[in-house]
């Protein structure tokens, strides 16, 4: 069950925590196979069970086998009596729950596997992140090794290569990938890692040095934007003549009523301060409002062409006595003629 030394063809073996990458984070948890643990310790006395779990925890906490120095190992396990520790160590080794390395360090097979898997996963993730940055440009990266099955070597070549597995990119040219794999012939992770780091740094530097260029929008787009902008009603606003005529033509109202409503309209929107996209449409809506109770003329529904209503325009000059004056003039002409 336990394994003191892991062979060179197996997962990577670590003698101490110093063998790990510097930036590798500490393990937060350890996976425990409940059934295996039960089988291993349930027929043992309680203190042996407690000591076994303490040894395991000490190894996981420091991410290295227990040191050969009994005093340090005892402290890490939280066992205060040296004699007790030595007895426990002897018993655990005899039960094959732990094993002593040639260096004298105490280890456990399951612990070695977990640590190896943790380190491999960390390295893969790190490299995966680097390769993800590299693979963004559309052109294939020659330095990237892809996972290609090689029957002549057995598929184990690709499978055993965690880096190749992590960076498999199906969109790369298969011919190039195969060739790359042949050239690499078992990738040198460190060299490629360094190469990729340098390339990434260069790319970052280039991005920093490049001036921030802003593409100016086409003039049409600006005009469109200008037209679409909402505007407030200004203090000097006067009802455009066209809108006054539109109201007279579409409703049974007099010019005085239109003038009065124009004043109300202006005061209302000046007071509210709202911005509108189309003031002509606002006026038309105002006139049709049921609160106003203006009666619409039938068959005279005409629309006017919208202009820029906020520009100062000619006001509606409507003479309320025009008809009477015309009538009086006609009568005078008749009388004169008679």
């Amino acid at each position: 069950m336990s394994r003191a030394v892991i062979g060179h063809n197996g997962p990577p073996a670590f003698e101490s925590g110093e063998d790990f990458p510097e930036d590798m984070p500490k393990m937060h948890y350890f996976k425990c196979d409940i059934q295996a643990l039960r089988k291993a310790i349930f027929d043992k006395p309680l203190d042996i069970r407690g000591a076994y779990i303490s040894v395991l925890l000490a190894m996981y906490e420091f991410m290295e086998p227990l040191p050969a120095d009994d005093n340090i190992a005892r402290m890490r396990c939280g066992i205060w009596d040296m004699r007790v520790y030595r007895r426990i160590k002897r018993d655990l080794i005899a039960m094959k729950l732990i094993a002593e390395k040639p260096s004298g360090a105490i280890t456990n097979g399951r612990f070695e596997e977990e640590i190896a898997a943790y380190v491999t996963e960390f390295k893969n993730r790190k490299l995966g992140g680097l390769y993800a940055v590299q693979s963004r440009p559309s052109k294939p990266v020659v330095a990237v090794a892809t996972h290609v099955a090689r029957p002549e070597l057995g598929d184990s070549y690709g499978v055993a290569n965690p880096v190749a597995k992590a960076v498999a990119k199906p969109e790369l040219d298969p011919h190039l990938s195969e060739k790359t794999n042949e050239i690499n012939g078992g990738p040198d992770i460190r060299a490629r890692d360094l190469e990729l780091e340098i390339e990434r740094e260069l790319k970052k530097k280039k991005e920093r040095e490049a001036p921030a260029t802003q593409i100016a929008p086409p003039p049409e787009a600006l005009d469109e934007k200008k037209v679409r902008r909402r505007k407030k009603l200004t203090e000097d606003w006067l009802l455009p003549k066209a809108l006054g005529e539109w109201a007279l033509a579409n409703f049974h109202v007099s010019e005085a009523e239109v003038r009065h409503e124009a004043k109300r309209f202006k005061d209302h929107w000046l007071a509210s301060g709202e911005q509108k996209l189309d003031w002509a449409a606002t006026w038309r809506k105002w006139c049709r409002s049921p609160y106003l109770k203006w009666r619409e003329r039938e068959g005279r529904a005409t629309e006017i062409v919208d202009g820029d209503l906020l520009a100062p325009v000619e006001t509606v000059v409507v003479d309320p006595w025009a008809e009477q004056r015309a009538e009086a003039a006609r009568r005078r002409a008749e009388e004169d003629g008679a």
Partner: protein
Amino acid sequence: MRLDAEHVRKIAKATTKTRKGSKEIKFDIAFMTDAMDRLNLWERGLLMQALIKAGESPRPTAAQRALLALFVYGGEK
């Protein structure tokens, strides 16, 4: 974490199955080390026994779930 539903969620998050079909539980190293420091060897063995029984049980009791939920790893805080 005082409700049973939270215990269940935490345990479910920390429990996986191996290829062989056995149950694997992620134990929080820091919490377990702190707890072990307060116990003697015999008590540690008893605690492990309780944890193994709780982990193995197909339908753990509320007390077993609470005990297990204390020691399993609940993710980054």
